[in-house]
């Protein structure tokens, strides 16, 4: 499908720090010529920073960026073969449409007649013929966006960078512009690097999607790969809707979740391994209870969404989201079935919290910047006061409190994952380490919480040999 396989942009081991904060953490990315690449992630994930490093408005703290084989990490923006479409357009208010588009060409000292032809061609490309002498402030948001695109493509860059260009437009206009951008990409044949937080936009437009979170690339792949085979819970949760459940891989091609065993197509996880199971809501078959049902449950709610119905079905203890063309009223007993192909298994990144700590006395251990009591039967091996230790705490044993008292460590809820029958929270503690918590309580992103860990939940073992010896 690609005309050319040689990479045009290579980002090698690039990091960017703003003071203490790490915006980008060892990014490696290679973009092929002519590709439509979307960098997708929630706000604050570093996607805009990555684009700005490629455009040259900021320089990388570490690593190397190459465009067309040339090293350009420190090259100022005006010498790079890229042009940018800015989120808020950034059209020059003191120039009219023609002069805005001709800005780059004038700097290149292009002859007047050639310039006029090019500007007209660019205007035609974005469907704005006859707007040359309009004041940019008199244009609507969509028209300004078109002028901004024309201003960038008229310079015939090798790469067009787009920083959330459609974010300020209304839904209808956004959909139209998406189609036009895709069409434009086909006609121009140049590389598009597109930044957005809108997963639907990314799936619609791209050849390749780069999913980012917290300064790291989570997954790179085609839209279908990313949707059907997310590599971790973050990607599964961020792209589309999904049911993410705790499961156990009993053996190859057999997985247990929701208290039942299911055939699946994944293998190589080992026997009796805890895993995360992802099932898209549209992959469930829903029907009146029959022998074919793998799961039996009761419909909790049913909402008409236009094309389909979205139902929440309670099976035993687990809430499952199901989408189907046929709706079942709340309260109905239904059967659910899912094909082996549609069960996506992901390796768990961790099965419990692990912290580095230090014994400070008998049955007293320090980690996360606080001291905790622990029980002697939970201490493995011989550790004396002052020894470096490894501390394990199960997710469900960590307690979160609304009001932190002085001796408690505090943190901020930064990621919430619904696992069917409980929430899995990532809490960023003030000690700068993440604490993972399983809870039935409802918290919101950004909530400040106090963290307590009861003595019996703490398991202590000697630090591994290569650990720190302080």
């Amino acid at each position: 499908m690609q005309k050319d396989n040689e990479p045009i942009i290579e980002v090698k081991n690039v990091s960017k720090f703003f003071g203490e904060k790490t915006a980008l953490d060892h990014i490696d990315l290679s973009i092929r010529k002519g590709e439509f690449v979307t960098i997708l992630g929630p706000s604050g994930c570093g996607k805009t920073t990555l684009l700005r490093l490629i455009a040259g408005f900021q320089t990388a703290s570490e690593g190397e960026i190459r465009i067309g084989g040339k090293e350009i990490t420190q090259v100022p923006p005006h010498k790079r073969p890229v042009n940018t479409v800015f989120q808020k357009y950034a059209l020059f208010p003191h120039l009219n449409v023609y002069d805005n588009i001709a800005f780059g060409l004038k700097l290149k000292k292009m002859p007047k007649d050639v310039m006029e032809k090019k500007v007209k061609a660019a205007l035609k490309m974005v469907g704005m013929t006859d707007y040359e002498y309009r004041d940019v402030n008199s244009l609507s948001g969509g028209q300004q966006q078109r002028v901004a695109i024309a201003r960038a493509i008229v310079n015939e860059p090798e790469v067009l960078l787009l920083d959330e260009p459609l974010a300020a437009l209304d839904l209808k206009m956004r959909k139209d512009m998406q189609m036009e951008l895709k069409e434009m990409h086909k006609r121009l044949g140049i590389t598009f690097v597109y930044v957005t937080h809108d997963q639907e936009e990314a799936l619609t437009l791209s050849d390749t999607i780069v999913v980012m979170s917290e300064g790291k690339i989570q997954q790179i792949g085609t839209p279908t790969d990313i949707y059907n085979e997310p590599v971790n819970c973050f990607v599964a949760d961020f792209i589309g809707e999904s049911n993410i459940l705790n499961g156990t891989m009993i053996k190859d091609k057999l997985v247990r979740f929701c208290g039942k065993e299911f055939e699946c197509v994944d293998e190589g996880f080992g026997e009796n391994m805890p895993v995360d199971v992802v099932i898209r809501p549209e992959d469930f078959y829903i029907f009146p209870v029959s022998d074919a049902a793998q799961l039996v449950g009761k419909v909790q709610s049913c909402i008409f969404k236009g094309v389909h119905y979205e139902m929440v079905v309670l099976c035993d203890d687990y809430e499952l989201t199901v989408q189907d063309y046929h709706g079942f009223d709340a309260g109905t007993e239904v059967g659910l079935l899912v094909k082996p192909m549609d069960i996506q298994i992901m390796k768990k990144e961790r099965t419990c919290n692990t912290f580095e700590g230090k014994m400070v006395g008998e049955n007293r251990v320090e980690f996360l910047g606080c001291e905790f009591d622990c029980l002697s039967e939970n201490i493995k091996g011989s550790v004396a006061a002052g020894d470096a230790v490894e501390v394990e705490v199960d997710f469900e044993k960590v307690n979160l409190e609304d009001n932190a008292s002085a001796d408690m460590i505090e943190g901020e809820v930064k990621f919430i994952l619904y696992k069917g029958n409980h929430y899995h929270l990532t809490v960023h503690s003030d000690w700068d380490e993440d604490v993972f918590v399983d809870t039935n309580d409802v918290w919101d992103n950004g909530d400040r919480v106090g963290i307590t860990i009861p003595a019996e939940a703490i398991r202590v073992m000697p630090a591994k040999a290569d650990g720190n010896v302080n």
Partner: protein
Amino acid sequence: MKKALVFFSSRKSWTLPYLIFSIVFVIVPLLLIVVYAFTDENGHMSLVNFSKFLAHPEAINTFVYSIGVAIITTLGCILLGYPAAWILSRSNMGYSKTIIMLFILPMWVNILIRTLATVALFDFLRLPLGEGALIFGMIYNFIPFMIYPIYNTLQKMDRSYIEAAQDLGANNFQVFWKVVFPLSLPGISSGVMMVFMPTISTFAIAELLTMNNIKLFGTTIQENINNSLWNYGAALSLIMLFLIAATSLFSTDSKNDSSQGGGVW
């Protein structure tokens, strides 16, 4: 009673004191200037004051000279003030606030005291008083009024304009002349309004810093009025008012029409 209450609680009625104030202290005096300017000493309608002005090369010379001094002062303020405003808009907040404070601090001292201090400074440094001292004093007194509005527009300017220009291939010099400068014209224009107009009519700075050797138009008006030549003084004032009105129209024009570059200055 009720009617009175309604009247005093309506917003319109609150403007009454200001209205009375402007009638008594602005409109009536202006009308008096016009009346005096168009009458002779005996109170008869005449244009004798204006023909006197046109017949006196000395008065016209002072007039032209004053405009010259005002233009030089304004240009000096732009040339010295723009880079200052630019640097301030680029430095971090706490630091630039301090510098702005230092620029504005002298404004707390009365203009006469400041100018007398300048005279003392020139004496101490054994520098001659005269034209140079006059220009120095003018720029020194008026530069904050130029820096502040320019700083304001530069500071509010969206950084993405600069980035867009860089992205389209402009080097730093081109970014400045093609984007930053044209976009800061409204600031320059209000700076000019605040410097050019008052400089035409100053007389205290000229008197003190040139030992009364150089006369500005303001001085001429003041002398005439001190010598009870009310009608002639009023005519000169009216001429100056016209000039100021013309400049202010000019400035507002260039503000509305900044797309044309507004390159009057």
